[in-house]
């Protein structure tokens, strides 16, 4: 069974703290994504990676960075957390070149609260 695991389900951080969100997939997928989920706004893409050490900005990259040192692991970094980054963060992965399939496999999410 395919699996995307986000290490932290719930986090509470203070403004200005550095935050790491970790994601691991066991499907040997090339593509990995970080989305942010907010009520009424759906899922918005923060960053994605199509290969190790490669990264591309999504729609809302400001205030975030990412790291992909290994194929199976994709980390989201908040260098200095702010209250407007309180949200649900979803990691996803997919096969490269899946054509019209393009299925994303999501983790269960990390709910971050910044005080």
């Amino acid at each position, binding site marked *: 069974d395919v699996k995307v695991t986000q290490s932290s389900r719930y986090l509470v951080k203070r403004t200005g703290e550095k935050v790491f969100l970790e994601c691991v997939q066991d499907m040997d997928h090339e593509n990995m994504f970080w989305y942010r989920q907010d009520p*009424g706004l*759906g*899922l918005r*893409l923060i960053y*994605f990676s199509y290969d190790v050490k490669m990264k591309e900005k999504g729609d809302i990259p400001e205030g975030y960075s990412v790291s992909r040192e290994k194929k199976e692991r994709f980390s989201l970094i908040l260098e200095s957390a702010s209250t407007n980054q309180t949200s649900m963060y979803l990691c996803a992965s*997919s096969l490269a070149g899946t054509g019209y399939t*393009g299925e*994303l496999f999501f983790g*269960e*999410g990390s709910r971050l609260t910044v005080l």
Partner: protein
Amino acid sequence: QQQVKQSPQSLIVQKGGISIINCAYENTAFDYFPWYQQFPGKGPALLIAIRPDVSEKKEGRFTISFNKSAKQFSLHIMDSQPGDSATYFCAASMDAGNMLTFGGGTRLMVKP
């Protein structure tokens, strides 16, 4: 700027009824339209998807209707069940790639 607009934001349907969720898009280059289903505490999962060369796709009780000229597509859930209670997201992408643009989501509640 939301390129895929989804309505309604929330929907309550009686068991056995038809649930209808609508999406409209602006970018005519979009050529892949999936729907994702998300249960509480879980990540979204692909439910059903359609390409613009067909006007309808049915999988069990779930049907996507697609209107290319109107740039709209919708999800119909027939004989809705309490187990269908979830948040549904429409999405669109272009060039058959993985870069999906999601709608705002619809929280569906099916009452017993």
